[in-house]
């Protein structure tokens, strides 16, 4: 395998990191909705926390994104 092909494979592997991130984000949001469903009073206090947590979970995808473009 020459260097150029190896680079393409590396980028393909890096993109895989985005897949579990999507699942994890959905998980966070669905858990939040379940909690609100059980106790609707929580909605106000949960909203800001969920946004911060989603941004935290998203970090992995952002790392992958940066790595993807630094590999070119």
């Amino acid at each position, binding site marked *: 395998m020459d260097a150029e092909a190896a680079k393409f494979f590396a980028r393909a592997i890096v993109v895989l990191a985005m897949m579990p991130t999507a699942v994890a984000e959905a998980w966070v949001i669905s858990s939040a909705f379940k909690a609100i469903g059980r106790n609707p009073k929580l909605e106000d206090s949960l909203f800001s926390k969920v*946004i911060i947590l989603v*941004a935290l979970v998203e970090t992995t995808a*952002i*790392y992958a*994104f*940066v790595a993807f*473009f*630094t590999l070119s």
Partner: protein
Amino acid sequence: MEGINILQLNTGETTIGAAELFKIGGITITNSATAGIFGTLVIFLVVYLLNRSYKSEGVPSKLQLVFEMMITGFYGLIKSITGSEKIARKIFPVIGTVFIYIAVSNLLINIIPGIAAINIGGETIEGLPSIFKTGGESLFRTHTNDYSVTFGIAAAVVIWTHIYSIEKNNIFGHLNKYFRFGALYKGFRQGIGPGMMSIIDFMLGLLDIISEFAKSLSLSIRLFGNMFAGELLSALLLSAFALVAPTLLIFMGLFTGVIQALVFGALTTSYFGIALADD
């Protein structure tokens, strides 16, 4: 001169590092540094306006009300994360300053229209004022879209948590968080079983040293990555379809700018909370 293709705009290459503009006595000024200086000036201006019309009695001005609302909200967030009024009062000035600085740096280029088109070098465009050029280096680049900036802020904040921890527990108490010889001694005095457990505790203390470095790395890469991704996506969209689609992305950019500043603030709050917690 060929006309500008309004459907597809080439904004030039998006690079990872900031571009060097000029040198002042051996100090390199990059385009992200100019944006930082500009942002600081904007903050100074707003603070000056706020200070001039400040009233502690009677009817406050609208500007003062907006800022008081923001500050109370942010203070409430810090209090809910640390769970202690005393710690929140101590660290609020630090984290508030970092939050405002990062939020202004994130949003500045997005909010002021045309500011990203001010270039140094390159050719002038017909029909536009001569400061707008194509090609050359942009005078302003989003301040946090430069890894040295975000790493500088993150490292400074993490070192600050260590200073507060030393101030609270003195230097030996602080070192005892990482080199747990005290726990080792106590464990082996109780017997061989608790002694073995204390060895594990000691190793965990050594691992905490690595996690201190990881803290500043993850904080800085998170902020830089988000800002870089935003800029790259807008460049991609502008080169594909320049009429409507980038508008949505600018709103998205405003949103992520504030959210990332908030995440940075919340995480540093929790780090300060850990450093200042009572045992």
